[in-house]
C-alpha cells in the first residue's frame, strides 16, 4: 500500500503490523475498517487466540474461531517465529516498510528479543509503536500477568458492578480488552499525527487499568471531593442516589431511568395505560432526587412496585415503544438475538454479509461502528487463514525466493 496517489479510505496510507492478543485485537480491526493494511504476524501454527471459542458450528479448530473472525476481519496474516534470528531479521524488514506496530506481548518481551521501540527506530525512525498492557510499560505493577478481570478490578469498574449480596462482577463480554483496544485505536492515530508533524517515532503506551478507570462516570471523583465511596447497587444506578434502572418485562428486561424532568410524562403514561399507582406523581416534576425537597422515598418505592407489576405483564419491545412515545428514558435490555432481529438496526443496514469460501458460507457480521459519508467502512474480507499471505508478502514484497521460503518453513521460522 504505502503512498496512494488517490486515497479512498481515511487510513489507507498505513501499513500496520499486528502483534496483539486479547487486548488490542480490536485495534487493528478498527484501523483495517478505515482502510489500513493490517498484517497479523502470527507464530507458526497460528496465534493462540484462534483457540478461543465460540467456534463455527461448535467445532473447535484454529480456522473456525468466531472470536478470531470478529477481531481479525479485514486483516492479512503471515507467520513468523520471532524467537529465531531469521525471524527477527525479517521482522525488522517488515517494520521498515510499515508505519505502525501494535503489540500486547508481555511487557519487556520485545525488548528482550532485541526488538524494543528504541531498537526498531534504527529500521524505521518514524515508527508509531502502540503497546497495550494491563498496567502500562513501566511502574511497580508493569510486569504483572493478568487480563480483563484484573483490569476491571484494578481500574475500579468492577467495584461498581453487581448485586450487593454477591461479589462484584466484571462484564462477561470483556470490556477491559475492548476499552484498551478502542483507546489504542484513537491513540494510534494521534501517534501518526505526532509522527507526521515531528518526523520522529512515537511510542504509544496504553494502560488497560487507566482505560477502565476513565469509565467510572463521576463515581471516582466523589472520593476526593466528599470522602464518599460508591458501592455496587444491583440493577440501580451506582452513585449518589441508587435510582433503579432495570425492571423485568414479560419476556426479558427493560431499562428505565427516571429523572426529575420525567414525572409529568410518566403521569401521562400511568393514566393512559391505567397503571394502578394510587397517587399522583406529576407534581414531583422537577423535584430533586435527594434531600428534603425530594419526593417521599416510601412513595417512590410504591411507584416502583406499581410499575414493576405493570411492566412484568408486557413485552419489552412494546414497553420500549410506549415509554419512548411518552418521552421517557426506556430501553430494551437487548440480548444478542434481539439485536440481530432489531428492525431499527435492519433499517440502518447495520448487518453485513462476509463470505467465508473455505466454509462454503456467508456469515452475517456487525457492520460499521459509525457511518462516514465519503469513505465507507470496510467490513471484510473475512479474517485471514494462518499464514495466508506469506507468499504475497515474503516473496512478492521482500523478494524472498520460493526456495528460501521453503528453507525458512523447514526451519520453523515461517
Amino acid at each position, binding site marked *: 500500500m504505502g503512498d496512494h496517489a488517490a486515497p479512498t479510505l481515511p487510513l489507507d496510507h498505513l501499513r500496520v503490523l499486528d502483534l496483539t492478543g486479547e487486548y488490542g485485537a480490536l485495534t487493528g480491526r478498527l484501523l483495517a475498517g478505515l482502510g489500513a493494511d493490517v498484517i497479523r504476524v502470527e507464530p507458526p501454527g497460528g496465534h493462540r487466540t484462534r483457540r478461543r471459542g465460540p467456534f463455527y458450528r461448535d467445532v473447535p479448530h484454529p480456522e473456525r474461531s468466531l472470536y478470531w473472525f470478529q477481531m481479525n476481519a479485514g486483516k492479512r496474516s503471515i507467520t513468523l517465529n520471532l524467537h529465531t534470528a531469521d525471524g527477527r531479521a525479517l521482522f525488522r524488514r517488515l517494520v521498515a516498510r510499515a508505519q505502525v506496530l501494535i503489540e500486547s506481548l508481555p511487557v519487556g518481551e520485545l525488548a528482550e528479543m532485541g526488538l524494543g521501540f528504541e531498537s526498531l527506530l534504527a529500521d524505521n525512525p518514524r515508527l508509531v509503536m502502540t503497546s497495550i498492557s494491563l498496567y502500562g510499560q513501566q511502574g511497580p505493577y508493569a510486569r504483572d500477568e493478568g487480563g480483563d478481570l484484573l483490569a476491571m478490578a484494578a481500574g*475500579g469498574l468492577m467495584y461498581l458492578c453487581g448485586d450487593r449480596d454477591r461479589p462484584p462482577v466484571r462484564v462477561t463480554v470483556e470490556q477491559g480488552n475492548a476499552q484498551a483496544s*478502542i483507546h489504542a485505536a484513537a491513540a494510534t492515530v*494521534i501517534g501518526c499525527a505526532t509522527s507526521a508533524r515531528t518526523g520522529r517515532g512515537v511510542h504509544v503506551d496504553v494502560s488497560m487499568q487507566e482505560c477502565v478507570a476513565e469509565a467510572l462516570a463521576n463515581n471516582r471523583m466523589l472520593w476526593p471531593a466528599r470522602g464518599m465511596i460508591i458501592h455496587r447497587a444491583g440493577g440501580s444506578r451506582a452513585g449518589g442516589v441508587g435510582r433503579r434502572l432495570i425492571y423485568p418485562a414479560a419476556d426479558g428486561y427493560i431499562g428505565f431511568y427516571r429523572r426529575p424532568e420525567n414525572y409529568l410524562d410518566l403521569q401521562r403514561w400511568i393514566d393512559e395505560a391505567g397503571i394502578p399507582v394510587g397517587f399522583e406523581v406529576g407534581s414531583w416534576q422537577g423535584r430533586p432526587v435527594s434531600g428534603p425537597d425530594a419526593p417521599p422515598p416510601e412513595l417512590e418505592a410504591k411507584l416502583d412496585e406499581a410499575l414493576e407489576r405493570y411492566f412484568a405483564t408486557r413485552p419489552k419491545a412494546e414497553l420500549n415503544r410506549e415509554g419512548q412515545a411518552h418521552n421517557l428514558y426506556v430501553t430494551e435490555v437487548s440480548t444478542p438475538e434481539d439485536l440481530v432481529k432489531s428492525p431499527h438496526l435492519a433499517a440502518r443496514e447495520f448487518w453485513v454479509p462476509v463470505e467465508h469460501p473455505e466454509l462454503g458460507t456467508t456469515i452475517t457480521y456487525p457492520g460499521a461502528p459509525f457511518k462516514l459519508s465519503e469513505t465507507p467502512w470496510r467490513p471484510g474480507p473475512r479474517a485471514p487463514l494462518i499464514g495466508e499471505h506469506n507468499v504475497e508478502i515474503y516473496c512478492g514484497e521482500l523478494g524472498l525466493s520460493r526456495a528460501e521460503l521453503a528453507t525458512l518453513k523447514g526451519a520453523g521460522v515461517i
Partner: protein
Amino acid sequence: MTTRREDPFQYPLTGIRVADFAWVIAGPLATQYLAVHGADVIHIESRGRPDVLRSGEPFVGGPPGPDSTAYFANVNQGKRGITLNLRHPRAVELAKRLVATCDVVTENFTPGTMAKLGLGYEALREVRPDIIMISMGLAGQTGPERHYKGFGTVIQGSAGITHFVGWPDRPPVGTGVAYTDFVASHIAAFAVLSALEYRRRTGRGQYIDLSQQEASMYTLDAALLDYTVNGRVQTRQGNRHPFAAPHGAFPCLGEDAWVAIEVRTDAHWRALRAAMGDPEWAHDERFATLLGRKANEDELEACIAEWTRHFTPQEAADRLRAAGVPAAVVASARDLHADPQLAYRGHFLNLNHPVQGGFPYDALAYRLNGRVPTPPRPAPLLGQHNAEVYQELLGLSRAEYEELEAEGVFR
C-alpha cells in the same frame, strides 16, 4: 525555546479548531482527546440551558454551580467555552461564522435539530466546504428509533451490554454507570481523527453518523457471531471464564473488600496453592486439572475465600503477586487514589482550575514517548471565553459584541 503550546510532541493537533455543540459525556469526551493534544476546541452552551453535566456532582471549590462541577471539568479538559443562545435569531449567523473558522463540528442533539436551526451539514458545508461534522445520536440519524431518548445508564441495554452484567441465575444489572458514553466517545474520537487524516491527504471533509448503540456493540466480543452462526444466545456468567479457574472476586478483611484472582495456567494454580500455604484441600484430585476446577468451581471458590478473608485486599493481592498469581485489589474510589501504579503513571492530573484548584482529573489512558498527555488549560467556566472568541476570533468590534450581549445573543 518553544513554548508548550507550540511543542509538536506535546500538541500535535495545534491548528485544528472544533466547534463542540455536543453535550453531556460521550460528545465532550470525544473532543477532549483533540483538546488535550492541542486542538482549539470551543465548547458551546447557553446560559439558559447549560450543558446537562454542569449540574453533575461532585461540586468542588464552591457551592453547587456550573463552574464548580468536577464531573463537567473532567470531560472537557483543555477546551475553551462560550455561550450562545441558538434560539436567538442572530445566533445562527454567529455560529456559522464560528464554523467557518473550524475544521470539525460535533453535536449530539435529537436528530434533525441542527438542520432545523439552519446548522445542518449541508448548510455548514456552504460556509466551510471541507468541514468534518459528527453527529453522535443514541441510535443514529436514521431508522425508526432515531428519536429515542436516553442516557448511557440505559442505552447500555440497547447496546447489548447490560444483558452481560450479573449472574446467570439472576436478572442482569448493567454497569451502574453511563457506560456506553465511555465507549462511544473513544470510538468517535477515532472516527474524527481518522477523518482529519483523510482531509489532510485529500482536502475533503465528510459527515459522520455515529450511533452510540452501534459503536458500543463492538465491545460484545463474538456474542453476535455466536448468534448469527450458531444460533446461541450467550448470557452473563458472573465472573466465570470459559477456560480459567479460579477466576473471580474473593472476600477480604474490611467492609465490602475484595481481591480478584485470575488463574489461567497450571503454573498459576500451583503458585496459588503455595501462596495459600499449601492447604490439604488444595491437593484434592478434583482441583488438579482445569476441567476438574471448572467442574467443582463453587467449592473451589468457597475454599479460596476461607483463605482470602484473613487479609485486606492489598495484603492478599501483594502476597499473590509475589507468588506469581495474577491478582489485583478490586479497587474502590479510595483504592484508586492509593494505587501505586496509577500514581507512578501520573494518572491524576492537577490542572490548576480557577474554581476547583488542584482537584484530581483523569489523564488519558496512554503515554506518548513516556509523557502524560496534558491539556494546555483546565475545562472552561461557563462562557469564560466569550470575549476572546467573539472579538478576537470572529472579529466583532467591542461595540458590536456589547450590543449582541445586551440583546441576549450570548445568554
